[in-house]
């Protein structure tokens, strides 16, 4: 029984605290993050496919005293696979990259992604030098990931195996300037 994406997101973000900054990847993970409850500390993506993890890296380097979680899909991660190599060199202790892997491109009609044919994202992350790499396949492992995210103290990669379903879309703000400005204001950055 695979995990369901909406409860999985809710579990990871439960009691998230003001120091958790979230970058959800475009498409389903952005809808999931919005469904879990809007926050000024979410920088939702409606585009920039392949860029979520690198946005997370720049943010994590700039904000070493806050935790940064990138939660994205397998298709988005595959488009920016090289960024795992880049992060494997930087290894900021406050960055978690979490991939909701359903094996399909949900936004474009559920076509199979590479992971469905055996491409192993956990193996890639490990090979890139990220020490803590988790393969999350059940509720216990998800709870463990949530605990690790709360006490994040080392670069973390996790692949969360989720069911390929399409819950109703919950759409956040899509004005990029407004999303950026409210995010920066929320963490105390002067305009």
């Amino acid at each position, binding site marked *: 029984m695979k995990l369901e994406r909406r409860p999985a997101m809710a579990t990871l973000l439960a009691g998230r605290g003001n120091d958790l*900054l979230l*970058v959800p990847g475009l498409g389903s993970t952005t809808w999931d993050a919005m469904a879990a409850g809007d926050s000024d500390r979410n*920088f939702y993506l*409606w*585009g*920039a*496919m*392949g*860029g*979520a*993890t*690198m*946005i*997370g*890296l*720049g*943010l*994590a*380097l*700039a*904000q070493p005293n806050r935790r940064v979680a990138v939660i994205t899909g397998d298709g988005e991660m595959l488009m*920016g696979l*090289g*960024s795992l*190599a*880049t992060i494997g*060199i*930087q290894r900021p202790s406050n960055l978690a990259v979490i991939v909701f892997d359903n094996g399909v491109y949900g936004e474009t009609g559920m076509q199979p992604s590479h992971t469905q044919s055996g491409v192993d994202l956990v193996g890639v992350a490990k090979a890139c030098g990220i020490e803590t790499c988790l393969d999350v396949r059940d509720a216990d492992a998800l709870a463990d990931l949530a605990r690790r995210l709360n006490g994040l103290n080392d670069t973390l990669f996790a692949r969360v195996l989720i069911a390929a379903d399409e819950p109703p879309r919950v759409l956040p703000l899509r004005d*990029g*300037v407004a*999303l*950026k400005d409210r*995010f*920066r204001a929320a*963490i105390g*950055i002067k305009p």
Partner: protein
Amino acid sequence: MSGQTGDWPDRLFEMLKRGGIRQVGYVPDAGHARLIDRCRADSEIHDVVLTTEEEGVALAAGAWLGGERAALLMQSSGLGNCINMLSLARTCRFPLLMFITMRGEWEEFNPWQVPMGSIVDPVLKLCEAQVYRVSTPDDIAGTTERAVQHVFGGEHIAAVILSQQLVGRKVWTK
């Protein structure tokens, strides 16, 4: 690798420091070699080696979300790798400061560098970037200062093009 480098990379580095740049993304490049070395040696700058230049566009956006200024170093061919990711900077008005060493425009031995090198200017303009060009070392400091002000003063995109005359031609036989 380069014929004439001079001290322009040091002058450029000083202006990056003065401009408060804290993250520098780059793909290794002969023309930027000395500047990259200076960034790597500086404890206040996060030097981030990238697998492809588009990663740097996203890195710079993340840096600005977190209140830091970033710069992105690339060769002209790298601009082509950035085009879709530049949507991020354009849609959200993220400041983006690029330094582009030119290939394919002057004394170029390798014809494979010409197609991308020849369209750098129009591509940048289509992507709403302010374009500056530096061909002599004496212009590097002033131009960089103006670009920094333009980019971070108003959340704009700008590229400082470092011409092949400035960077020097690549030497193919030793």
